[in-house]
């Protein structure tokens, strides 16, 4: 019994209790031991026992309470459903502040335990190589292919990193060992748009030395990516140029302007990207993540660069340009309309775009209503009228009037909107049809739905950038899905790029948006015909080789300067197979910054950063000018140089300074174009330890064009120094003072010749042992 009863009749009686004398004791009486009152006899487990439980909150890093957050006291007017009396905040010691659940999460949620040690272990020891390319989900966990990838510059440096384990495809991934590595996802996204690729790479046919140009850098990068056939590519030069653009720094897009501390854990997306900044007014509280900002920045910048270099906008604006007209209607009856061209568009949910309770619920809508509504959104905002200066509620209507062949969208949904999206089957449309009807854009899944409209365009999904949210490490990262037309088999294939990890994925997997860890940041739809066009190499254009035959000094031609080289003439124009010897010197911009744990594991926080300082190339073909240098360029450096490494580089402080130098200086862009042209022409490069040189120059030269003496005279796994080899094989003392790249290139050249001789006579092993 013991159940509540409504009958007044008591059916049972309480027990008479005699617990002995009863003293009143205050709860604060610390001198009264709690054991003063005994425990009755028990024959079953006590209620106070907590068997077989594990508590795991120990060591949990507490959620940081950000006291700098804009605190909004809850105003009197806000509704208080539980209380009829209005709040008197002035008398309240602990006032209410507005709590944003979207931003800070549900109340009283226990913080997750994250083991930093395990994460570090993963980052230094790498991942299971058998499993790493597995992109399919078997449970709730994030599949291995989407993992945070290990640092490539780990214990032994990236020369020894096994990139091949992460990429079995013919498409190159991008190394994380660069600044702003989060931009890798955007680079991959546009690399598979034929029109864009062809335009960028096509630009390389002309010289472009005037200004830092992301257009040229992307051209070189895409050219390198297509020539590398799966070898890893570093976007180092692109990042160097990006770093030199002031607007990029102002917009907070650069590593150096962001919080330094993120990098050791998260090498792809800065933490700040996952924390949305929230405007004070509720309702319109979405802002762009860093990759979305970068997408806008990059496209705008490229449009501007095209204009500046050609004098008119044709290609890129035609590709990307949305014509957006904005109408502002205010109560004061003032009317304002303007039209701009925007290369990308933000898309939000139909509700946010002012679509009044659409006929269909969002729970069975695809992405199309999201895009469509974002192309003609209506918002009411409290604004100051530009005409009369009155502040009032105004209706702002934004309309897109055209359908460009490439549509680049930043997708901005709240966490709860993503939750709805995940429940919708085939939310992500692979293709759709669109038309302009009465100045409005209409999008439909099939052609038949658009019969009555005007010209109908078919769009197909070209690719998108997804954000992977990993609560086990409290990090987010970006991956790119790209759809590539296989010209041979006339089919599309999907690839997923997670930095240097590249894997071909099923279409179902690529289109699956139901995973809890996956959201879309940037999405790209492309005109169906454009998507099937071939990719053209720069070799198909007529290239300007002029720079190989002239000087292009940044500090003007100095009087009495004695050149140590003789420029090439058109008579000796290099062609495929032309032998040249090369040596490059570098200076140290900043030394490696690393953390070491108690086991001696080293984690490089900021890798060593070097900058090209001098390059010498000499003629390798027998003839009157044999071994005469034709390039000996010192490279301008505007960055802080930590160490000139004079002993190795021969570079003296001031040598690279445009103001002070006594050398003839050229820009990195000029010298890079020379090397790139020589490679493009098919020259054979002779040198010692060329892998490292090319890595720092940031060019992937095909292996067939490399003759590396360091590799020919490899002793087991040990590389022999040029100086030792010169002494042992050539009986020559070199590098007695500082290194000199002309001497080194020359030594490598004669070493190569010696190697060919020895190989012919078959006495190679003996020679080295002596």
């Amino acid at each position: 019994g013991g159940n509540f009863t409504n009958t007044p009749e008591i059916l049972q009686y309480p027990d008479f209790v005699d617990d002995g004398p009863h003293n009143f004791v205050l709860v604060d009486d610390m001198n009264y031991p709690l054991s003063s009152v005994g425990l009755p006899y028990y024959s079953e487990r006590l209620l106070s026992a907590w068997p077989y439980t594990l508590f795991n909150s120990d060591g949990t890093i507490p959620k940081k309470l950000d006291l700098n957050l804009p605190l909004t006291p809850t105003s009197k007017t806000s509704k208080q459903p539980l209380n009829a009396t209005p709040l008197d905040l002035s008398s309240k010691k602990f006032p209410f502040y507005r709590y944003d659940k979207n931003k800070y999460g549900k109340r009283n949620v226990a913080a997750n335990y994250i083991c930093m040690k395990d994460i570090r272990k993963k980052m230094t020891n790498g991942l299971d190589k058998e499993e790493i390319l597995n992109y399919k989900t078997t449970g709730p966990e994030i599949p291995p292919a989407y993992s945070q990838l290990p640092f490539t510059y780990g214990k032994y440096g990236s020369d020894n990193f096994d990139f091949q384990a992460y990429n079995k495809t013919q498409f190159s991934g991008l190394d994380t060992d660069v600044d702003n590595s989060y931009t890798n996802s955007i680079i991959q996204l546009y690399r598979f748009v034929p029109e864009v690729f062809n335009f960028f790479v096509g630009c390389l046919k002309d010289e472009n030395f005037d200004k830092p140009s992301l257009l040229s850098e992307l051209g070189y990068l895409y050219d390198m990516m297509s020539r590398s056939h799966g070898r890893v590519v570093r976007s180092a030069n692109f990042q160097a140029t990006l770093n030199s653009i002031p607007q990029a720094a102002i917009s907070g897009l650069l590593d150096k302007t962001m919080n330094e501390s993120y990098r050791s854990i998260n090498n792809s997306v800065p933490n700040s990207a996952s924390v949305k900044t929230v405007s004070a007014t509720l309702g319109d509280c979405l802002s762009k993540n860093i990759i979305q900002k970068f997408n806008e920045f990059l496209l705008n910048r490229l449009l501007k660069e095209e204009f500046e270099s050609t004098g008119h906008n044709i290609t890129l604006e035609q590709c990307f340009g949305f014509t957006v007209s904005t109408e502002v209607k205010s109560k004061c009856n003032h009317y304002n309309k303007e039209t701009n061209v925007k290369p990308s568009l933000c898309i939000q949910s139909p509700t946010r775009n002012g679509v009044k309770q659409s006929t269909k619920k969002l729970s069975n809508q695809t992405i199309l209503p999201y895009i469509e509504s974002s192309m003609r959104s209506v918002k009411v905002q409290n604004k100051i009228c530009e005409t009369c200066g009155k502040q009032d509620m105004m209706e702002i209507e934004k309309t897109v009037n055209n359908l460009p062949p490439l549509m680049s969208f930043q997708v901005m949904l709240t966490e709860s909107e993503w939750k709805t999206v995940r429940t919708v089957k085939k939310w992500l449309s692979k293709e759709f049809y669109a038309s302009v009807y009465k100045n409005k854009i209409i999008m439909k899944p099939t052609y038949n739905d658009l019969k009555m409209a005007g010209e109908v365009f078919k769009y197909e999904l070209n690719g998108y950038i997804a954000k992977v949210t990993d609560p086990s490490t409290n990090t987010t990262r970006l991956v790119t899905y790209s759809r590539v037309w296989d010209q041979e088999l006339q089919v599309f294939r999907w690839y997923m790029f997670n930095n240097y990890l590249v894997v071909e994925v099923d279409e179902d997997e690529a289109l699956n948006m139901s995973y809890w860890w996956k959201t879309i940041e940037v999405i790209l739809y492309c005109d169906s015909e454009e998507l099937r066009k071939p990719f053209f190499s720069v070799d198909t254009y007529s290239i300007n080789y002029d720079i190989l035959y002239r000087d292009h000094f940044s500090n003007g031609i100095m009087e009495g300067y004695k050149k140590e080289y003789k420029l090439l003439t058109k008579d000796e124009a290099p062609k495929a197979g032309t032998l040249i010897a090369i040596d490059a010197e570098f200076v140290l911009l900043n030394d490696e910054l690393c953390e070491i744990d108690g086991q001696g594991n080293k984690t490089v926080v900021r890798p060593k950063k070097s900058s090209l300082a001098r390059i010498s190339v000499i003629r390798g073909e027998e003839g009157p000018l044999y071994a005469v240098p034709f390039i000996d360029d010192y490279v301008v450096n505007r960055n802080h140089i930590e160490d000139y490494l004079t002993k190795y580089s021969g570079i003296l402080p001031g040598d690279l300074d445009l103001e002070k130098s006594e050398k003839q200086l050229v820009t990195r862009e000029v010298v890079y174009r020379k090397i790139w042209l020589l490679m493009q022409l098919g020259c054979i490069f002779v040198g010692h330890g060329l892998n490292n040189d090319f890595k720092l120059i940031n060019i992937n030269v095909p292996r067939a064009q490399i003759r590396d003496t360091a590799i020919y005279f490899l002793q087991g796994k040990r590389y022999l120094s040029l100086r030792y080899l010169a002494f042992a094989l050539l009986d020559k003392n070199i590098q007695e003072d500082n290194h000199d790249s002309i001497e080194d290139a020359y030594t490598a050249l004669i070493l190569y010749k010696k190697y060919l001789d020895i190989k012919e006579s078959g006495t190679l092993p003996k020679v080295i042992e002596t």
Partner: protein
Amino acid sequence: PTIYPPPHSILQYHLYFPETPQQLKLSMKPNEKTPDELFISNNLREQLVKKNLASLQNFPPGGPLPDLIQDYFGLVPLDFHEKKTDIDRYQGHKNSLFKVFSNIDGKLYVLRRIHDLKSNTIDSQHLAKTFQNWKKLQNVNIVALKDVFITTKFNDSSLCLIYDYYPKAISLYETHFINFPLLPITQDYLWIYLIQLTNAMKSAHCLDLILGDLINWEKIIVTNRPGLIKLSGIAAHDLLFTSGNKTPIEINKLKQQDYVKLGHLLIKLASNVKPPTNNPLSNNNTTPSSASSDYKTNKIHKDNVEIDQLQVEDSFKEVLRYLTNDQDDNKNVKDLSVLFIDQLYSNFNALKHYDEYLNKTLQTELENSRLFRLLCKMNFIFGRIESRIDINWSESGEKFPIILFYDFVFHQIDETGKPVMDLTHVLRCLNKLDAGVSEKLVLVTPDEMNCIIISYKELKDLIESTFRSLTQTN
């Protein structure tokens, strides 16, 4: 006779707090804690409970025992020395042991009654002097003597000796040979026994007191935890046997005999050391040891042969040879201790470690006491009927932070909304509250629309003042 608590109600320790299974423990990550780790260890608690219980054991009145003997009452016979070997008999006198309360200081003591003295066996001067001598002997390895008297309350003339009471103490012999589970003697035990016995002997000899037959595995008790021993029963022998004063030469001779006795006791113990099981070969060399052989009659040569055959460390054998060498009549503690300096230091370390462990446990338990009181306070003020209609407890009220804090501490959920019940979280929050730290926390209202930012210190003050106002309500 029945005693309280009744024997049927054996403590059900396994029901009190089941130990986490070993399997679970093995797979645990360092950050994971089982409930038993957060509180006093079961072992230590059980041990202490048993002692409490033994202390509290009571005897119904009206039995054959006197209610009050001199200053002592509440006699409970201890079965501790039920086994009556000849050593336990004092010059043919029966003897018995009781737990008693002292009327002087209220503490518990042990009363040893030596029955049926012939009148005038012990003259009062001798009794007083012997008591004075032995009372001075204060050493952790000796059960202290508190009082001596001769009484007739037992209806005879009985000599009573009052010693400190160590609940649940059993003899060294019982510990290693009788008790279940048997505690095997190891080299480590031998070293710590040696140290403690040397310590006891040193103290006694300093006062020119002789241990003699007390160096006996049935007179040595194990207190607290295995390895900690005390010599028991001091002064009885002197009271019964010795009458006159001893000359310094006699005393020195007896002291030297104490060394030999110590040696023989250790040999007896050492001969029961199991050889290391991972060394089956050495097993063959073992002669079965006979614990019963009378070592006192053995010659030094026999000792040495026996010592050689023991399964103990060589350095320990060296100690044994020193102790049993009856050619050397100048044995002293310094020379002896030099033979095991290392052991002294490691024992010193072990003791300090245990000291720190106890300190920590005590700290946890004191914290638990504070936290329990704090929790009581919160529960006293929280959810009272009158507060259900009190505006101060409403969302706009002064007391609302308490409600939110209570939710924050106890009603955590995970991302999916499932309740999370993690005692480590509760402990951390309550400790901070109790300490009143300045750390701030964000407390969110149930509708998740608003929040309050408040420090633990402010919460503590709020709870404290609310509690105070309740106690002062009239």
